[in-house]
């Protein structure tokens, strides 16, 4: 795996706190994501991992603290601003456009990249047509890459779960993101599907140079894939470091075994 450049911080989470009523989802969490690395966020159920992703891509606004992405600090960011800035994501429970084909789903990921006006697109003429074809090319590349050629015209609701997750990854890739957030990309998969998905994640990181932040429960996968791991428990960061460092951390072991605080 390529060594990430320590000097290039892509995303900085600075003292983020988030509460829903009386429930503290995140308390003063800080960590950074370096350009080019695979960063895992782990922790027991309810640790605040998904909340953290939701803060990063603008679904939630932190009560305190801020997110700096590419050096630009923002306290309140709308989801479409995050994606415009180059953040793409997948969801814990697959969130695809169910009525549309796999191809259309991935094309939807290109929405932000398409520039031609509505009138031209409706006339399907000239520059707009050329643009549509060009984007279709990019989408076909992604379809090849993820090995889902055979299902491109199938409405995604009919696909098995593992393939749906792949299409969802494809949609995120279509955005050509700088930062890709994966929320449990391997949940509910069998061993073979997990191996495929791991391969895709590593390839994305290597070939496209995409920085990846992922939440995953399968520790073997996390330790294999990631360059650095941040551990959350009850909304508090309890460890941050390389997989080996984290594995040896007593607090982490306690959190997973449920030792009372």
């Amino acid at each position, binding site marked *: 795996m390529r060594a990430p450049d320590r000097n290039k911080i892509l995303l900085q989470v600075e003292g983020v706190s988030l509460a829903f009523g009386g429930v503290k989802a995140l308390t003063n969490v800080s960590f950074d994501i370096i350009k080019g690395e695979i960063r895992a966020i782990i922790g027991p159920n309810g640790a605040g991992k998904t909340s953290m992703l939701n803060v990063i891509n603008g679904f939630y606004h932190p009560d305190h603290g801020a997110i700096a992405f590419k050096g630009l600090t923002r306290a309140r960011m709308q989801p479409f601003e995050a994606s415009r800035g180059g953040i793409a994501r997948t969801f814990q429970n697959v969130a*695809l*456009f169910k009525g549309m084909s796999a191809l259309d789903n991935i094309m939807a990921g290109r929405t932000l990249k398409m520039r031609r006006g509505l009138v031209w697109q*409706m006339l399907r003429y000239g520059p707009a047509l050329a643009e549509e074809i060009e984007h279709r090319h990019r989408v076909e590349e992604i379809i090849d890459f993820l090995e889902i050629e055979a299902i491109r015209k199938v409405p995604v609701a009919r696909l098995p779960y593992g393939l749906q997750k792949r299409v969802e990854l494809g949609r995120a890739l279509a955005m050509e993101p700088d930062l890709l957030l994966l929320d449990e990309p391997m949940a509910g998969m069998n061993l073979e599907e997990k191996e495929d998905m791991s391969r895709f994640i590593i390839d994305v990181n290597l070939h496209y140079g995409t920085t990846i932040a992922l939440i995953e429960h399968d520790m073997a996968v996390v330790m294999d894939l990631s360059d650095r791991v941040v551990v959350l428990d009850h909304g508090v960061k309890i460890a941050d470091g390389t997989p080996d460092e984290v594995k040896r951390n007593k607090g982490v072991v306690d959190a997973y075994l449920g030792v009372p605080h």
Partner: protein
Amino acid sequence: MIALGQFLEVLIGGLMTGVLYSLVALGFVLIFKASGVFNFAQGAMVLLAGLALVRSLDLLVARDFALWVAIILGIGFAAVVMAITAWLIERFAVGPLVNQDGLTLFMSTIGVTFVLEGAAQMIFGSDVYPLRLFPTDVWLLFESHFPGGILVSKLDVWGALIAGILVAGLAIFFQGTKTGRALRAVADDHLAAQSVGIPISWIWFVVWLAAGLVALVAATVWGTKLGVQFSITFLALKALPVLIIGGLTSVPGAIVGGLIVGAGEKIAEVFLGPHIGGGIEYWFAYVLALAVLLVRPQGLFGERIIERI
């Protein structure tokens, strides 16, 4: 023995009326496709658009504007009114409900209905206002073949023509443009749509604007036929069986559904009515819709309901 000429006349008349039903049904389909919301307010939007158009026309004509200038300005004014309405609805009624259940959004459109009906009549008045945008006389076709010929209303032909153009435009819009794709995406999943960079508030504004403009088109035709008045909102009720038959998510379905309802109820009224006492026209469409529901719950053209268990 039923005369062929009479049958054709009833059939054509029914089909044409059906196209006009489709015009109203289209507004429902648009919003449903793009937000997964059944828009109860479509009938009220037709009333609002019609009133805005007819009242501004009257005013302009009274000020001695040339008729064609008045028509252009009047339609422009009505379009602006529908745009403002779309913005207000997005901002205050459905916008705050992003990520909520379809039923919640449906309830809020019921509220929108009452506000629109009240506001439209408060601002523009509540009488019956005649609108004369299209010719209302008739053609008599094939007089040499059939005694008396076949009677076809010119207004109905205009309506059919406009509906055809509208449907072609909407079909391309939904299938072939990125905005159309974004609309379908928003209908399926708000969160996922936001995550790929689709700004929901903008998309919803576009949808409500499109539905408002379709309402305006429906208002021009229906307003010419019946006069612009409160009862135009009841058209929404006739659009229901059209939607059920055609399928809630299909633009072509709205058209075919409209044709079936229009032709079906007229033929039933004329040829079946005398045998069972008449008045069939008022309920025939609903019985037809019920039959379709039993056989194909998603309608003739609706998206198949797929459920993985």
